[in-house]
């Protein structure tokens, strides 16, 4: 506990670094997956292709991907950008399926009614289908958030700073407390992001609370 107090400044700084590496992949991953997932939901042939590609992407282990990406992106090997791109790829791989399933979960009667009421296709997707798909998308996003926060730590192997620094440093110094602080810190960050996503998800679909009450 003493160690935590003495090193609070460093812990705080690394926690911020950790967040800065975790949030962009989650947000960008979601923004890319929304249109892709909708296409996968709407056009049967594209679904098989997209799910196959995302399955393949998700098969690639993270550390090798971090090391591969500089070749493909022309970045430096220690550039945090590599980690962000790799984690965004994983996020898209997971979320495309969730988004497609989320749009599948919209009842067909609702879709038909909105057409009958004169919604244009764009209005229908954005104002009827998307809001109803939110709960399933949120469920997928929570999985992505937890795994992203955990995978960020692997970047510390190639010198991209996050809570993972404590794993490497603690191991080298033979100091378990430091490793433990890194593990607890990572889980805390994951828990905080998870809470934020759950609350945001609830605020986006206020009608579900009315339905329960």
């Amino acid at each position, binding site marked *: 506990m003493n160690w935590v107090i003495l090193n609070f400044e460093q812990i705080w700084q690394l926690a911020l670094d950790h967040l800065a590496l975790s949030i962009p992949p989650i947000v960008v991953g979601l923004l890319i997956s929304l249109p892709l997932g909708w296409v996968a939901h709407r056009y049967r042939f594209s679904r098989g292709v997209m799910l196959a590609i995302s399955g393949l992407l998700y098969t690639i*282990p993270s*550390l090798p991907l971090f090391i*591969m990406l500089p070749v493909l992106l022309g970045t430096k090997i220690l550039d945090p950008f590599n980690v962000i791109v790799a984690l965004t790829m994983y996020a898209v791989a997971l979320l495309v399926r969730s988004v497609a399933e989320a749009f599948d979960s919209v009842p067909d009667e609702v879709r038909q009614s909105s057409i009958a009421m004169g919604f244009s296709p764009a209005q229908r997707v954005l104002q009827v289908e998307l809001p109803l798909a939110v709960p399933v998308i949120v469920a997928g996003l929570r999985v992505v958030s937890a*795994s992203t926060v955990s995978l960020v730590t*692997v970047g510390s192997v190639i010198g991209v700073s996050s809570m993972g620094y404590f*794993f490497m440093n603690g191991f080298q110094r033979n100091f378990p407390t430091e490793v433990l602080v890194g593990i607890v810190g*990572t889980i805390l960050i994951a828990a905080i992001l998870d809470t934020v996503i759950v609350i945001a998800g609830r605020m986006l679909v206020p009608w579900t609370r009315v339905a329960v009450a």
Partner: protein
Amino acid sequence: MDYIWQAVLWIFTPENAFGEGGVIERVGQHLGYTVLSVSIAAVIAIPLGIYIGSTGRMRFLATSVTGAMRALPTLGLVAFFGLFLGASLVAPIAAIAILAIPPLLAGAYAGVESIDKQTITAARAQGMTEWQIVTQVEVPLASKLLWGGLRSSVLQVIATATVAAYLPLGGLGRFIFDGLPVRDYPQMLAGSLLVILLALASDWILAMTYRLIQPRGVAVALHIDRGQDANLLENLYSSDHSSKRKTP
């Protein structure tokens, strides 16, 4: 792309490929660790998952453990075990095996849980013993999700074994951790390419294996599920089908 070429050349250079710490030895080690730790995890996770799925007891274990484990950083766990269990092979294998448990547990649990309860009751009414129900009804019907759990567990282990090379452990991660301090990028890239290939190949082989061992009843049910051929069940019992079965 120049680097990729260098990495491929690195792999095929005889002194890198053969001998002690060569590519062939490292691939063997990586596969060895994978088989060992997945086996340890399977012995624990599969019976437990089946038990939870069929009795409904301790369900919180299957759902919460698998959920929380997702946020648990593998690198941290490996480091933590490394410090407590010393520099032997036990520490990394134990850490890797623990991380292999959640996908297997979730697969076994979800597979058994998803079976229609009437099927189990029917099996019991037929006079099957509980052991027969587990081995002849539940496991075959759960096999698709169970095998899916095995596949993700194997992938998890291949990835974790790479990271665990800093403990230090052998395997393909060695090339990454040996190349890193001396900035030998071709060597790191070679290690990365080999891990990616190993992961893709293992997953593909496991997917193909399931096609061979998949219980026939499950194959039919899945086919109908997909709506590809609603008459398949009828076809299965028609004479036409039995003649088809003979062709190799």
